[in-house]
Structures are given as structure tokens and as C-alpha cells.
């Protein structure tokens, strides 16, 4: 079958709402785009373990410690699941990690901000995971089978993360004046990065018709951002936190919140590597990889010895 015919069949399948599976024919541009997106997502999960892991040893109660451990374990599991799903497209995890370590591959810009106080753990769950859910529920309807199924599972866990984050914030916002201040401060610092993490505005990020048609991209960045803001602003008001946007107002006609100007300069600066923690995050990952090299070598050597013994026996 020639490529043109295969492409027609591929597009017809997607238009009919069917999933594309690893062994199906797919255009090279589709495969490449998915590898890029899925590996970025996997990298985000494992880099995201660092700012949150930063507070596990200091979690203020045994219950909070257990919840945070469970949450970070979920992130690690998501990372593993997503690397495996990406491998179905014919690329190795080691190759993907190499791209992360060399700075060639990106991960979510949000994890280049530091977690300065305990309230940041609440803010991440509530805002960062909240924004991620908006994006990922859309991606769960995407056309690539392994990725869309991964999103279904991941979204379920993310909604637990989102709730525990909001619960931390609610608790702080209703606590002592110091705790309330801590919550508002974290909210001030994480609000803008959270709405930025959903990607550049539509005029700066023209979604190619092709990616939409192929159901790789499901919704525009601005549409997802709007949903996130509409959902989050009332939650902030409910617990008595003030959204750090003087221009924010509700439009009665459209039924949506309108936000002030987003500092896209900061966003692109962080993407380029100039955020507060870019260097630290990559350094931590590279060091863990280096320090673990002898462990992985030992495991490989042992497995080879075992396989040999099995052959002899």
C-alpha cells in the first residue's frame, strides 16, 4: 500500500474515534510529535518529584507525610508508565533520559520554581496538579492508544493529588495568622506559573490543523487555561485567599473570568533555562544517574550470571 493510501486510512480511523496502536502504521510526524510530548510528560513527572520530595522529611504531621509519600510515589509511577508508553513508539528510556540530562528535552516549566515553605506543597497539589488535570483529561481523548489510556489512569490519581493540595491550603487559610500568610504567599508565587504552564497563548502557539486533526492536541492552550481559571478562582475565594491579579474580573455575559496580562517573557525565560531552579533540577537528575551507574551495572552483571547458570543447568 502506498503512503498516501495509508495516510488516508490512518486519518479515517482517527476521524471515526478509533485508537492508533503501536503496531499500526503512522506518519513519521505523528510518531515524532508523540515521542516529544509523551517524553516531556514523563520527564515532568520525575523532575516534579524533586520540589515535592524536598518536603517529605519535613512534613508537619505523620498523616501529611504519608500522603506526600504516596503522592510522590504516584508521580514516579506515572513517569515509569509514560516512559514505557513512549517506548512503544520505538525509542529507549535511556535515550530519553539522555535527552533530559543534556538539556535537549524539556519538561514542565513549573518545576523550575522552588518549594520554599510547607504551603507550597498545598499550592502544587491544588494549582499545578489542578492545571495538569485540565490538560490531561483532554489528552485522554487523544488518538494514540497507549498515551490516552495512560492519561485515564493518571488523571484519577491526579484528582486525589489536587484534593489533598486544596485540603492543605484550606487548613492553612483557616489556621493561625502565620499559617494564613504562608498560604497566601504560596498562592501569590504559584498562581502565575500555574496558568503559564498550560502553554503560550493561542496567537503565539498556532495549533497546526494537522495535530488537531490527528487528535494529538485536543484543545487550545487558552481554552484549557480558561477552564482552569474558571474552576480555581471560586475555590480560592471559598477559602479566603486573594487571587494575585488586580485585573481579574468576572464577565457576566460570557460567564468566564478575565485575567490580567500574563508575563510571557518570564515564561520563555524559564523555558530557556533561566528559571530559579533549572540548573539545580538537572544537576540533581544527572547526579542521581551518575551515582546510580555502578548499581545498574551490578544488576546487569548479576542478571547475566544468572542467565548463564540457567543455561548450564
Amino acid at each position, binding site marked *: 500500500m502506498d503512503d498516501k493510501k495509508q495516510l488516508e486510512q490512518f486519518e479515517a480511523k482517527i476521524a471515526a474515534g478509533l485508537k492508533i496502536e503501536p503496531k499500526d502504521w503512522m506518519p513519521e510526524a505523528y510518531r515524532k510529535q508523540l515521542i516529544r510530548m509523551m517524553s516531556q510528560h514523563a520527564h515532568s513527572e520525575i523532575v516534579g518529584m524533586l520540589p515535592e520530595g524536598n518536603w517529605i522529611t519535613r512534613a508537619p504531621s*505523620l498523616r501529611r*507525610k504519608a500522603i506526600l509519600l504516596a503522592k510522590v510515589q504516584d508521580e514516579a509511577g506515572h513517569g515509569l508508565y509514560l516512559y514505557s508508553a513512549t517506548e512503544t513508539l520505538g525509542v529507549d528510556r535511556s535515550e530519553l533520559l539522555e535527552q533530559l540530562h543534556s538539556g535537549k528535552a524539556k519538561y514542565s516549566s513549573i518545576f523550575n520554581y522552588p518549594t520554599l515553605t510547607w504551603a507550597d506543597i498545598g499550592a502544587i497539589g491544588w494549582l499545578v496538579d489542578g492545571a495538569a488535570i485540565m490538560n490531561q483529561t483532554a489528552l485522554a481523548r487523544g488518538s494514540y492508544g497507549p498515551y490516552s489510556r495512560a492519561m485515564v489512569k493518571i488523571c484519577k490519581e491526579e484528582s486525589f493529588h489536587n484534593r489533598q493540595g486544596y485540603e492543605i491550603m484550606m487548613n492553612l487559610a483557616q489556621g493561625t495568622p502565620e499559617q494564613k500568610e504562608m498560604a497566601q504567599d504560596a498562592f501569590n508565587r504559584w498562581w502565575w506559573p500555574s496558568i503559564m504552564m498550560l502553554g503560550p497563548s493561542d496567537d503565539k502557539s498556532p495549533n497546526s490543523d494537522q495535530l488537531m486533526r490527528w487528535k494529538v492536541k485536543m484543545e487550545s492552550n487558552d481554552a484549557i487555561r480558561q477552564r482552569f481559571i474558571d474552576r480555581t478562582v471560586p475555590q480560592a475565594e471559598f477559602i479566603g485567599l486573594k487571587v494575585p491579579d488586580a485585573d481579574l474580573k468576572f464577565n457576566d455575559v460570557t460567564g468566564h473570568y478575565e485575567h490580567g496580562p500574563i508575563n510571557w517573557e518570564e515564561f520563555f525565560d524559564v523555558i530557556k533555562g533561566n528559571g530559579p531552579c533549572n540548573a539545580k533540577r538537572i544537576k540533581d537528575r544527572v547526579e542521581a544517574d551518575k551515582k546510580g551507574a555502578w548499581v545498574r551495572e*551490578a544488576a546487569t552483571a548479576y542478571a547475566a550470571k544468572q542467565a548463564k547458570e540457567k543455561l548450564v543447568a
Partner: protein
Amino acid sequence: MNLQQAKFEYLLRLGDSSLIIGHRLSEWCGHGPILEEDIALINIALDFVGNATSLLGYAAQVEGKGRTEDDLAYLRGEREYRNLLLTEQPNGDYAATIARQFLYDTYTFFLYEELKSSKDETIAAIAVKSHKEITYHLRHTTQWMLRLGDGTEESHQRLQTALNELWMFTSELFDMDEVDGLLINEGIAADLDKVKAAWEKRVNEVITEATLQVPVTNIKQKGSREGKHSEHLGFLLAEMQYIPRSYPGSKW
């Protein structure tokens, strides 16, 4: 010492050891040698925190002074902590973490096996739940003992060094005092002589299978039962307790 005091003390020993070794494991989060190990270590740390929560919660109840498991975890100082010295030793390289964990998991495997038939129903129930988890922990660390011991020359050397350095903390695992004596008489606590025999047999088997040497040392570090710890514990507690100590009376 009456039975209630002995039980409180015994629960602190068990609960503190879980809490402290869980804390150490959680320090690996995001820095493990491979993603699968990150997941395993966090999972095991979570089991320990859960186990510590149950034991310290029960300790608080037995004490009957209105304290909670969080009060016991966050508001006691170094000298009041009863965790085994082995559990507070720093992570070191992966071999040191695996060696520490293997020695401790083998210990709790046989200890909790005994506690499953404790005449104290709460301790028995906690032991039944924990023993299921510990069975997985021990399987995990035993596998790594074999991989590292019988892996490469480097891994072999690192693991042997780790075992040699940790060995002086192992005799303390089996020390018994008045607390144990009282509770063993009541059928509540485990006889650590029995645990010791099983521990030695298993540990020797695995170390030999891993092509390593069982360390020999005359140095026996002890003191945790009287709250005499290594210098490491103070730093660990300073980190763990800093929020509740900085904001007294706040709820989180």
C-alpha cells in the same frame, strides 16, 4: 516499672525504629539509582510511616496522658527517642542503604512473626498487617544483596564495606532489659533470643550466597534503649520536627 509503663516503652522502641528508618529511606526520593528503585524505596518508606503511626498512636493511648502519635513523633527530643542505632545511620551509597535495610528487614521479619501471636490484641493486629509488608521489604533487599554482592567487583566491594561498617550496630537489636522481661512474661513481647537465632541463620545464608564475608567485630554499639544515640539523630529530628516546633499548637 509497671506493665503499662513497660508497654509504652516497648511501643516507642518499635514505632521509633520504623519512623526513623522510614525517614532515612524517604531521603532517597528522586535521587535513587533507577526509577524502579525510587518507587520501591518510597513505597517502603510509606509502609514504615504507616506502621509508626499505628504503633505511636497506640503508645499514646497506652500512656493515657492525652498525647497523640504526632506529639510523640514531633515533640520528643533525642534523649527520648528509642529507635535502634542501626536505623538512624545515614544512607551512604546505595550499598550502605541496602545493607542497613537488609539487616533491619531480616530482624523485623522474625520479630513481627513472633508479635503476630502477642497476647496484646492491638500489637498482634499491627504485627499481622506489618508482617505482610515486611515480607515484601525483605524480598526486595535480599534480591539487592545478591545483585550487589555477586554483581561487579565494585558493587561487591562497596557492599562488603557497608556490612563491615554497620555490623557493630547489630548486636543491639537483640539486647533485652526489664521492659522485655516483664512483657515476655505476659506473652506480649517477643523473645529476642529466639529472633536472634533465626536472624543469624538467615543473614549468614544470604551474605554467603551473595559471595560476601560475614563481618567479625568486637565492637558493640548500644544505648538506644536509654535514648543514647549516635550524633546523626539530632540532625534528623531537627529536620523532621522543625515545623511543629516552630509553630507551637498549630494544626496542619
